[in-house]
């Protein structure tokens, strides 16, 4: 067991790494890190936010409409939330 936790040579180090990180997870991690680093090249400078600052470009441009819609669909369908919390709140479902 100890050898796995504190590998003495390259081979056992690789093995222990593999056991700690199944291949699938490792790939996911690499993709996430790659995406995060790619994000750093995305975006705008503060003076380029003219369009993004408009009310209609806000992710929830009309919170009142969103609240009313959430209430309707929560009481009529089996799904809720996703964009915001989908928790309890009324006896309608």
């Amino acid at each position, binding site marked *: 067991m100890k050898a796995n936790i504190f590998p003495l040579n390259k081979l056992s180090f690789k093995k222990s790494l593999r056991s700690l990180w199944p291949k699938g997870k490792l790939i996911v991690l690499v993709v996430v890190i790659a995406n995060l680093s790619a*994000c*750093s090249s*995305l*975006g*705008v*400078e*503060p003076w*380029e*936010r*003219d*369009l*993004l*600052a*408009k*009310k*209609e*470009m*806000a*992710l*929830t*441009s*009309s*919170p*009142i*409409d969103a*609240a*009313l819609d959430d*209430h*309707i*669909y929560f009481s*009529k*369908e*089996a*799904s*809720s*939330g*996703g*964009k*915001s*919390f*989908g*928790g*309890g*709140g*009324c*006896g*309608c*479902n």
Partner: protein
Amino acid sequence: MAEKVLVAVAVGVTNDMNKKVKDTITKTNKKINLKASLSLAASALLGTSVVTAPVSHAKDADEWQFDSAFLVYSEVDRVSATEAIIAGTKTFDNDEVLSLKLTVDALTGASANGAIAQPMAQTFTRPSGNGQYVTPAGETPLDDTFKDTRVQLNAQWAQPLSDNITGSVGGHLSKEYDYLSLGVNGNLAYDFNRNNSTISIGLSYFQDTFTPEGGIPKPLSSMLIGDSSAPDWDAEFAKTRIGDSDDKSTADILVGFTQVINRRMITAFNYSYSMVDGYLTDPFKVISVINFDGIAQDYIYENRPDSRVKQSTFMQTKYHFDESLLNTVADISYRYMWDDWDITSHTIDTRFTIPVGRASYIEPHIRFYQQGAADFYQPYIIDDQKSVDFVSADYRIGEMTAVTVGAKYGVVLNGGNELSFRIEYYRQMPTDAGFVDPNGLNGLDKYPVVEAVIAQVSYSF
């Protein structure tokens, strides 16, 4: 301030920040009597005073912004609801934002009780046990005693915790005649990459208590039908009940990531995990027990598991087109939801905000929704399959497709106040999840379509 708008994902934070943009865009003096009264009322509630606030705060900070709306939701031959909302937001000195919201709604009309249509008239006992109602032959049984009034209060406080971190906390209270819901939530949002990227996490917890009139029915017990004025009726009805009230709790975790792509585009990704525990059965719903000819022999109260774990992923993109496409803003989102009841669902929501002239816009809206059935959903039970643990014939957890089509027209009035009108058509189309029906049900509508119209007027000031 504009940068901050783009960095908040957690809903409380986002909503509050939206108001900030609004402050900057429409920071005109709006001296309206109604607004003055509401500001005073809100200040009185908070124990602060509008009048004594320092003059330097008079514009961006220390100004209440109000959004109000009145909505009518009306189903063809079924439920109709009216709902009124007023929400106030106040930005304080250090970018602290307080939001208060009051919602009142009233519900009347008929709702499907879960039983299936029959070639003959059917008699059901009301959930309260007081009296009966009769459904004509060939019609979907609807309980017409559906009536409720609800009052809901929400409060949310958001503030910067450091240069890059915004925090918010909120509370929720909702009271109906037969239902009480209390909730709290907390959110943290971290901005990085010149405020172009944001990671957020939110937690919420709700505790609900259901006290239905007539009490909680005994799961899978037969609905008592007969003369409700008979001397032994009350005692017999009580045998179908297991208590006066029951509880459920809901804990949600929401993790979000927002990214500004370029000057015209912003995207958001959310993952949410929701645990619901407690009484998840609908006390008003029954399921028909039919014989091999398809004729109802009995109606039993439904029974759902006492826990449900829901997960969902949500993606949204907003894009601001250029003049060649009239500066239209496209808002497209997709949600995939799955749970341990075997329900999966897809939701696609699209809106296009198209400016019309200098001060108005039109916003077409299309929403598509598709869900699979819960593993214990059945439209009815055939007599010899009666030994089930969990069963429900509620079409809302059955297989279904739904479509919403509508449009909104908004106009910015003098002084920056906005008036808007919205009208939408909502159509639910329940579908057969592969059940083979007895001949006696031929020609009956087992999966009736539900249609509704939604009309709304909003005013922001």
